[in-house]
């Protein structure tokens, strides 16, 4: 009997292994055999490659997906990955969800690289750690100045827009030699949105300080009509930004305080991620380290559906996108604050680059409301190997309750850079004095 049992066990194990291999292989097989276009006629065959919201969009005919291949490896540069590897075992997440240095039990003043280079899916805090890796891969840019255009779109096309600069400074996640020691108020991120056009909203600027600890953010707004700086409430980070379908915490797919949410790992999946170009775009850094922004398109954003006269789908559907299969972790996010504007969020986080490709957001009542897409391209400095992995061309937010969309778009500009060193953008830029200076 023992022999028979052993034989059955072996057969069972073998079958399980084969099934696992088949399942894994089938995914890659399907990825290799994706058609040139997935639309409402054939989308059912490829349902597994979509997040639910996007699948419904394809099924409705709002989107036509054009799968393809990218001619580069979408990952972080070697220097960042090597620094990340050195962080192994140094950091942890406490019961409150705070990132801590194991040696001190406190929030670390500066970490360069991802704090958790090895992800263990059995770790009960794995979801928090994945999101902290997401945070720190963004912080590696040190500081950025983006030429931004926010586009409000209904079913017919663009309704209104606002354009200007978005400046960010990360006080953590900075490489050696680039640390900013002068941080008496323990600020994690400085933000400054400087609206340049159109005229009636010109100068409607906002500045915010996000603190390293649990303190509420400080926010200021310049109101050009009365020529004054005014304090504003911080709760508005989860409320629509200037009447859009997005909110401050959703900037770059997640721009809030990580411990303010409960994070939960749900599983893995292969999905189709959005690239605005299948090719790498070289970007030559300046001698001071600034990396200029280059984009595969001209104009203020990737082309949208309403800008393509032959397009029959949704006005906000991005055009000329190469959809590429990427493995993701599915991470649930739920706000701890009972007054937060939203309920459940589902994030689809790239397993290699930690880019959040999609985000589905539910109302507190449980009704589905908004989904967000991250559209990227890949730039690399051929000399240093540094790249823009994790940065966006467009964040697109679609509100399925009111059928309205907003996109936040980066585009080429002589003043637009990532990897801005402290000599070019530091905390002195984000003073009330400078806010006044840049606001009229």
């Amino acid at each position, binding site marked *: 009997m023992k022999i028979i049992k052993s034989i059955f066990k072996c057969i069972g194990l073998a079958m399980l292994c084969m099934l696992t291999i088949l399942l894994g292989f089938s995914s890659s097989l399907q990825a290799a055999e994706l058609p040139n276009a997935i639309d409402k006629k054939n989308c059912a065959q490829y349902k597994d490659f979509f997040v639910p919201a996007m699948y419904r969009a394809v099924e409705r005919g709002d989107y036509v997906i054009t799968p393809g291949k990218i001619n580069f490896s979408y990952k972080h540069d070697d220097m960042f990955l090597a620094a990340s590897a050195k962080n192994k075992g140094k950091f942890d997440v406490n019961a409150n969800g705070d990132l801590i240095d194991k040696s001190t039990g406190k929030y670390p003043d500066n970490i360069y690289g991802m704090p958790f280079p090895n992800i263990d899916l059995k770790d009960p805090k794995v979801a928090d750690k994945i999101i902290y890796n997401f945070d720190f891969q963004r912080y590696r840019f040190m500081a950025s100045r983006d030429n931004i255009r926010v586009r409000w779109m209904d079913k017919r096309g663009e*309704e209104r827009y606002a354009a200007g600069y978005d400046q960010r400074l990360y006080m953590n996640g900075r490489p050696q030699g680039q640390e900013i020691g002068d941080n*008496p108020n323990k600020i994690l991120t400085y933000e400054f949105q400087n609206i340049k056009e159109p005229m009636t909203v010109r100068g409607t600027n906002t500045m915010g300080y996000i603190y390293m600890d649990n303190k509420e953010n400080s926010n200021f707004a310049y109101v050009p009509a*009365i*020529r*004054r700086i005014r304090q504003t409430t*911080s709760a508005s980070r989860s409320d629509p930004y200037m009447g859009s379908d997005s909110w401050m915490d959703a900037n770059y797919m997640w721009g809030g305080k990580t411990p303010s949410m409960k994070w939960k790992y749900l599983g893995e999946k292969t999905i189709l991620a959005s690239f605005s170009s299948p090719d790498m775009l070289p970007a030559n850094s300046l001698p001071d380290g600034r990396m200029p922004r280059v984009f595969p398109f001209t104009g203020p954003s990737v082309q949208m559906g309403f800008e393509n006269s032959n397009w029959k789908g949704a006005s906000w559907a991005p055009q000329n996108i190469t959809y590429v299969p990427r493995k993701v972790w599915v991470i649930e996010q739920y706000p701890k604050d009972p007054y937060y504007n939203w309920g459940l969020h589902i994030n689809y986080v790239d397993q290699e680059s930690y880019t959040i490709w999609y985000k589905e957001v539910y109302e507190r009542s449980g009704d589905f409301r908004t989904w967000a897409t991250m559209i990227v391209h890949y730039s690399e400095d051929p000399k240093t190997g540094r790249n823009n992995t994790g940065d966006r061309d467009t964040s697109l937010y679609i509100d399925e309750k009111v059928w309205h969309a907003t996109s936040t778009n980066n585009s080429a500009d002589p003043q637009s850079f990532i990897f801005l060193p402290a000599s070019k953008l530091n905390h002195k830029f984000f003073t009330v004095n400078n806010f006044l200076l840049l606001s009229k």
Partner: protein
Amino acid sequence: MSMKKWGGVGYFVFAILVMFGFFSSNADAEMTTSFHGLFESNLVIRDINGMQYGFFDEAYGVQQRNTLKFDVDVYPDIQWGSFSVEKIHLTYRGAYDSIFDLRAHAFNIRDNIGLSRFDYGLRDIRFENDLREAFIDLAYKGDLGDGFFRPGRQIVSWGEGLLETLNDVINPPDMSYNLFFQNPDDVKTPLWMGRINYSIPSMSGFGLNFDLLWVPDIRPTQNGPLDGVARNPKAGFQAPFVSITPFADLKGFSVRERVPTNENEYGAKVSAAIGERLNVSVLYFRDVVSDPNGLKLYLRTNQAEVTHNKQHVYGGFFSYQFLVGSFEAIIRGEISRYTAYPISLANPRVNPATFEATAFLLKPVTKTTLAVDKDLRLRWLSKDLTKVTFEWLHKVINEWDNVLDDPQIDKTGRVTGRIGAVKKDRRNIREADAFSFQTSTAWFGSKVTPSILLACSPGKHGDGTTWMLKPGIKWAVTPNMYTDLRMQAFLGDANASYGFADGIKVASEVTLRLGYEW
């Protein structure tokens, strides 16, 4: 503009050119520019007997103003150690009000009074051609903190109050063409001045900022032609302020503004950021009073002279981010003390020997305001936040000794009677209050933005409460085109003659604006 003033402008332009030459040797300079503006057409229709007495049953077009306004900014990206040239800014505004041609018969205004550049005639309100702002920002960011020096023509606003001017006395209002339907900064008169703003290096939980001003450009509150459209409710700029003392009585007079342009104004503000939530400022301003604080009527010659004296303004303001649990609001407050504030006499005093009348007394006055701003989630109204503001304003004349010292005034301070052909019904009152409620939100993905302002001045001494209602709605027709419909109405006791209600009469107005912006 006097030669002295033109000399100042010339010096400013010369200084810019010299600085360009000086810094242009910097090989790394990456100069960028921006050019944005708008063109809009605005129609104002006035119901002269108030909408509550028949909805626009006696209405007249009183403005059809076509405005071109644009900003030019030059960012030279010139750095010299810790110093830099940050920006050169220009704002131009030009306008043509066609109502003076479309309803020419309704306006009996001389083309150019010509007594001083502040005495507006028809030409001044029919056309505008003004380089409103022209300044350069020279900045310092270094170990000693950061700051900037901004010489040029500019607008500076101090304070927290929205309903009434408290410490915001630097740029006088331009009431020559509109008052209610413009952004507050559009009805300010920019002034040539020098401004230094400096912040000490950042410290834990504490920041200090200094704002210093020197203003050699002295201008008054700019009125329209005082001898022309005043008291003509069917035309002109002033209604519903048709009975504002003392201008109601000036029709037929040759009015001259006597402005002490040889004077200077200067002031300083110190602001402290204490912790992350509290901002407190204290200030002083040596003020040439923008409003007339002297009016002499020469009754024999039908001439009038408006004068402006100096006073000290002391004040302070604060804002506090109030946080208890998840409840959050901004609390704002402001106080200002004027040492010689013009109090218009309910009954101008006539010197029987000279037939000269005095219409103002200068008195110390204190104004206080307290306000709360709260963002509300009203899902039944909008998916966006609904912004709500409550504001209370209190004004007191600190020395009341002889303001009421007039036998013609009754015990409540009211005086009635006539000056020439003009019926008067006015009251001096020592203390006055006003309350306001403002709210705004966004609909249809912020394509439509409604707003409403409701203000009231509570009744006193037997008079009823007066109300001002100002609803508005803006629609983004296309990404570059907008239209805007607004109304203002004065409700309540039309005969109230005290405090903030004095002069606010029954007229209602509606405006329709169509604009293109880029």
